[in-house]
């Protein structure tokens, strides 16, 4: 019997689903035995006392789980990173945002949602165009903006394919209640999601991922792609996790399942 394309895909999908289930099962049993039944606080273990190429931080987001109308990740990010509100949608700063998408030209097409932030590309076009290396890729793959050095030319905003960047175009006053672990901002520089680098360096996962797990639907998983045993590596290996705009070749480190 000749397999046609559809059969082939179905079988492939079943196998993939099977392995995924198996691995999720083993992951659960692992945490259960390790932490006596409590859901483990996923520790982010970095190698050594500095950013190292032994780690490669990234994220896998399961869109099937991402809840409609849930904005736990966005709120957590704003709180953690003191992201201000300007009450002007054109100028507002967005480190993470919820995107709604549906099939084009299909009446009544189902609307779905996903969070999008900086994807921390392997080949970041923003860092390539930055004239002063204010935007750079750290050894562990996190793409950062050094606001001490940024000259505010905004070339990176032109070059970013994912619209991950915002320009601070208005004065922002520090206010009581700001998160004091994270600096506020001066106008005139570009900023973006940094995977909550201060949290990663102290062994915590990014604020959005934490709140997604605690308040949201657990759609976001953060981890180390260099660690083959990490949950994100497993998810990317065993499921159809995809990148956004792979054709551009920037190789984002944020993967989506269920697009």
């Amino acid at each position, binding site marked *: 019997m000749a397999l046609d394309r559809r059969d082939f895909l179905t079988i492939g999908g079943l196998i993939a689903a099977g392995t995924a289930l198996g691995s999720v099962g083993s992951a659960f049993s692992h945490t259960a035995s390790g932490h006596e039944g409590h859901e483990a606080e996923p520790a982010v273990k970095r190698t050594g006392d500095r950013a190292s190429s032994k780690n490669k931080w990234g994220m896998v987001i399961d869109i099937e789980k991402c809840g409609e109308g849930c904005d736990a990740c966005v709120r957590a990010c704003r709180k953690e990173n003191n992201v201000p509100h*300007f009450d*002007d*949608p*054109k*100028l*507002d*700063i*967005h480190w993470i*945002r*919820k*995107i*709604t*998408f*549906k*099939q*084009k*030209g299909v009446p009544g097409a189902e609307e779905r949602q996903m969070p*999008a932030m900086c994807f921390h590309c392997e080949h970041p*076009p923003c860092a*390539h*165009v*930055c*004239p*002063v*290396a204010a935007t750079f890729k750290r050894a562990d793959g996190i793409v950062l903006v050094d606001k001490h*050095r*940024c*000259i*505010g*030319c*905004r*070339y990176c*905003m*032109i*070059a*970013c*394919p*994912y*619209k991950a*960047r*915002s*320009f*601070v*175009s*208005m*004065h922002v006053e520090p206010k009581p209640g700001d998160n004091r672990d994270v600096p506020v901002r001066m*106008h*005139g*520089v*570009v900023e973006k999601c940094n995977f909550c680098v201060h949290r990663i360096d102290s062994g915590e996962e990014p604020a959005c991922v934490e709140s997604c797990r605690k308040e949201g639907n657990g759609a976001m998983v953060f981890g180390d792609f260099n660690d083959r045993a990490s949950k994100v590596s497993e998810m990317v290996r065993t499921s159809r996790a995809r990148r*956004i*705009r792979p054709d*551009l070749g920037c190789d984002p480190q944020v993967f989506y399942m269920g*697009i």
Partner: protein
Amino acid sequence: MATKIKHTRIEGKSSAYLVFMIVAGALAALSPLSALYLFFEGHHVTSMTNQVPWGMPIVMAIYLIGASAGSLVLSAMSSVFGRAEYKPFSRMAALLAVLLIVAALMAIIMDWGRPDRILVPFFHFQPRSMFSLNAILYSLYMALGIVYLWAMFHNKEKLERLLGLCAVALAILVHSGTGAIFGFVYVRELYNSPLLPPSFIAAALSSGTALMIITLHYTFRFTGRKLDERHVHNLGKLMGVFILVVIYFIFIENVTRSYAPKNYEAASFLLLHGGKYTAYFWIGLVLMGLVVPAIIALNGATGKSVRWILAASWLQLAGVMLERYLIVIPAQILPLEFFPNKEITSGFLDGQFAEYSVSLLEWIYSLGLAGVVMFGYGLAIRLWPMVPTEAAYPEQLLKTN
């Protein structure tokens, strides 16, 4: 070589000169004032947003760099290519080139969010960034332009020829680099094109020539010095040819882009249903900015009339300004595509056409830069012998014509 050309300073005692300098000075003063306001207030006072991060200042910058490169090539025509008919305004053209690059650098730097960090690019050279390369190239170019002017003043002909050659090479490099700022941006269909660097050079030459015609005409008219009309005819013809090259590049670029189905949306936005951008493109740029001036300049009857050629030059100057605008802005208006064939929306205006119209502050900013060039030019021709006492057409060329 042609007969020796004598340059003298202008007297600068006429009321016309005084009025010109007051107007130019007032405009020039707007430039630092608007920049300071922008620096202390932040970019929310302009129309530049997170959707359209580059606005009029960048349009002005590439326009001024273009005109500068064009002027410098014209200036070097006599010393490098031995064309005696360009000798009379060689100094004026080099002066314009220097002033225009200064204004262009002002346009770029004052638009930064942090212009106080002006020296940072020189301490952190990034060979992969076109901006970083250009920072070096522009500075070199400005310095070379000044030395080249100096060599001309001191009648060091060998040095002048050598520097002129370097200046032409650098002008081409500088403006290719400027085109590459946009051409290398592979994520936006309306930017990404290997044709942008050469197309920028063509537009630089045409706009530089147009600016030269205008400067020559008014300088000689207001100083009461004699300008042989054949200079204007000759430059007009040159401009006409350059405009044809610009038309060719724009045609090829758009046809190539429109061919690929993945670019249908981007190409049709610019060419068919982009609202004001489509109107600017067809009526403003193609018709009034390119085709009409080319016809005027190359037509036998109008090409021999100073008035017609002047009109064509003004049209061409405005046309190239519009061309720069249409390079910088529409690519940012088009939404970035996340998924092919999917509609997306978000609180960050994803998937929507952005809006941009030049704000008052950006107009003031741009006028200020024009003022800087005008004021600098007026001052320089008063301080140094830039303008020839008489611009005769070299006789030995007449026999061949």
